[in-house]
């Protein structure tokens, strides 16, 4: 198994774990944490391809990861602020109780 494949497999497993958490947890904060795990897996993929995927643009993968980290930080800040605002309104963070928009 080549080094690239090892990293890709670890990243795929991490992505699957994060997806399972995001799909099954009821707590909105943990769903956000699952999304963060998926983003970390993607970053791992990008760096691994930058290192082992040919030498065309060696810095491109790392630059991409920098932007992903920045966007993920913004996403987490806004997501947690939304969760806190919703908690003030409803006194709960359980996602299955978020049914105000149900027709």
């Amino acid at each position: 198994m080549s080094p690239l494949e090892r990293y890709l497999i670890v990243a795929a497993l991490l992505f699957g774990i994060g997806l399972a958490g995001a799909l099954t947890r009821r707590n909105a904060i943990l769903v956000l944490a699952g999304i963060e795990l998926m983003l970390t897996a993607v970053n791992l993929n990008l760096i691994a391809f930058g290192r082992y995927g040919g030498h065309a643009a060696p810095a491109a993968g790392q630059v991409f990861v920098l932007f992903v980290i920045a966007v993920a930080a913004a996403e987490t800040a806004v997501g947690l602020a939304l969760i806190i605002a919703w908690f003030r309104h409803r006194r709960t963070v359980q996602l299955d109780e978020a049914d105000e928009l149900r027709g």
Partner: protein
Amino acid sequence: METAFHLLAAGVLVAAVAAMSLRHLVHCALCLVAVFAAAAGLFLTLGAEFLAFAQVLVYVGAISILIVFAMLLTRTRAVDMASLSVRPRVLGVTAAGAVAGFVIAAVLTSGALPEKAAAAPAVPVRDLGRELMTQQVPALLAVGLLLTAALLGAVVLALREPPAAPSGKEPRA
């Protein structure tokens, strides 16, 4: 290098499973910190020092603290006792397993991946900075704007609303 990779990969996966399956929220947050730290270690084994430190600063430092604060601020009961019922949980785990299995099968059977590729030389921080400041300037500016807007938005969203004016109007939701 081999040993470091195996230890870090095992650490990432075990801590991730724990973070997504434990019942106590604070334990989940601690396991999340372990995942991010081990992922930073994996970045180091790939020769991406700057990103490893950025990962430690942003994820281990800032995002984990943010998550812990959110957990404390929204504390109803710390233990997520009533989880999802069995059927959606099975569905979710099956879907995630299918996605991961599909990707792994694709990685193992694909002929498109470079075979036995020699590692590219590690990118020094100087090159990274030069790339950011020459080729990627528009993206860098856009990310700066995005971060500013997101942080302002987060503050506005999380601001405590003033008590409703006694005018008989519905308070804004």
